[in-house]
């Protein structure tokens, strides 16, 4: 009989999870944000080349269709927003294939919410309020700092995140003991930013620090709209606590043509990398054509928050059954 039938987390962690979820629901109930549920299993899936998905066969005789476990509930929630739902939130499982490590489990719990008529600044205030509400006195966080990507990147690397120079970036990489950086990243600006931000900037964020990093470079815009005043940056924000990436938000892209263009770009990259190429989510595009209200949305990994709330070293310490025991 296998010896690993028991949960990897303690019973206290089960209780902490239940309390945290209850507080999240309280927080949004107080703000009249509606809790919703959308499918985990869907006919469409996000096209981000950096997110690997799970697919499965839906047998509906006489045909068999490919369906996907959602990497996030974003598209379905935007369809609700376009239908007039008003502000909504969801606590759901999300699935990302191949992601396993100290901070990753291929199945994880995501809190995602959308606030109608909120811009990025209002969203950041919302995030600050939620984190304070959840952490209270448990974690003595310094005042949350809002800082632009360009500024925090410069602080820790001396480099300009918006102006790419393979030579300058590589000189810095050599200084910090990353001689492999050039062969890893070549002349791919976005890849260099991923490498230096995760290996250097996050690593240098102080203990008990909490940053809202906004104004991501346009090459890392994903589903955010571009800044109307400066097209080099995008209306995207990320939350970092103790240097751990906890969540990602946007002032959402509402333009169906721009969305369609980004889908096509991502699908092209997928083809080049010989990754599976799903079809564009026509439901989302139709919803955008019908009209997505001006809104901002945020997704936060609940498991990572639980790790921070309980000072856990590994995501396995906060999950009942991580993938190795699932």
């Amino acid at each position, binding site marked *: 009989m296998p010896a690993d039938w028991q949960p990897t987390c303690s019973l206290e962690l089960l209780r902490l999870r239940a309390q945290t979820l209850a507080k999240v629901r309280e927080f949004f109930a107080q703000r009249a944000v509606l809790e919703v549920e959308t499918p985990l299993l869907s006919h469409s899936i996000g096209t*981000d080349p*950096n997110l690997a998905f799970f697919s499965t066969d839906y047998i509906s005789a006489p045909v068999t269709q490919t369906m996907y476990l959602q990497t996030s509930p974003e598209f379905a929630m935007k369809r609700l927003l376009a239908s007039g739902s008003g502000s909504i939130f969801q606590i759901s499982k999300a699935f990302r294939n*191949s*992601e*396993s*490590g*100290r*901070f*990753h489990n291929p199945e994880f719990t995501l809190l995602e919410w959308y606030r109608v008529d909120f811009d990025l600044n209002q969203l950041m205030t919302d995030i600050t309020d939620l984190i304070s509400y959840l952490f209270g006195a448990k974690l003595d966080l310094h005042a949350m700092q809002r800082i632009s990507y360009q500024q925090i990147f410069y602080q820790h690397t001396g480099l300009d995140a918006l102006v790419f120079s393979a030579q300058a970036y590589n000189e810095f990489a050599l200084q910090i*003991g*990353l001689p*492999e*950086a050039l062969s*890893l990243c070549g002349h791919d600006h*976005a*890849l260099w*930013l*991923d*490498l230096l*931000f*995760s*290996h250097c900037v996050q690593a240098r964020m102080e203990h008990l620090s909490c940053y809202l990093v906004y104004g991501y470079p346009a090459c*890392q815009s*994903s589903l955010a709209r571009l800044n109307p005043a400066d097209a080099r940056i995008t209306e995207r924000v*990320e939350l970092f606590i103790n240097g751990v*990436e906890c*969540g*990602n938000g946007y002032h959402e892209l509402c333009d169906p043509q721009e969305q369609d263009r980004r889908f096509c770009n991502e699908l092209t990259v997928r083809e080049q990398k010989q990754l599976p190429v799903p079809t564009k989510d026509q439901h989302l595009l139709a919803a955008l054509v019908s009209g997505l209200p001006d809104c901002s949305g945020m997704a936060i990994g609940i498991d990572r928050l639980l790790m921070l709330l309980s000072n856990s070293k590994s995501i396995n310490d906060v999950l009942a059954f991580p993938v190795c025991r699932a």
Partner: protein
Amino acid sequence: MAVYSTSEFKAGLKVMLDNDPCAIIENEFVKPGKGQAFNRVKIRNLKTGRVIERTFKSGESLEGADVVDVDMQYLYNDGEFRHFMVADTFEQYQADAKIVGDTAKWLKDQDMCIVTLWNDAPLAVTPANFVELTIVETDPGVRGDTSGGGGKPATLDTGAVVRVPLFVQTGEMIKVDTRTGEYISRVKE
């Protein structure tokens, strides 16, 4: 030899990196929510013993290294090479000073040790955790002192120098922990 992908990099796995055999110590998956996944790997070069960190894109792979640890008996030193034998098969291997390194000071004829083989050639020699060696030289201790506080240096028959209690004398056999180089006890013959 097999090829291993970043997701298979577990502590202890032996792989080839920059043409040298290496052992994985630690493997951290680093993935920005919206970006490229990396594996930050801590790795020991088995030739030099140096530990380095190296980042890979997730999904990259390394060739496995044919590295095995074999229990062997140390036979003798011919001046240039030290000779070892696998007890079961009588198969013999020789290793020069560069490979034996610091381990030499713990090797006594006939003792068992671990020889790490890479492509069937010795790469490193690890002594047993505990060895019993004879003191060939140490200052006479102070009469009546049995506590051994502070101690004194003693040279052993292999050339190693360890600190021993004051009451231990030349000609006695002692047990030493090779991992720390510390005296453990006297050995009754």
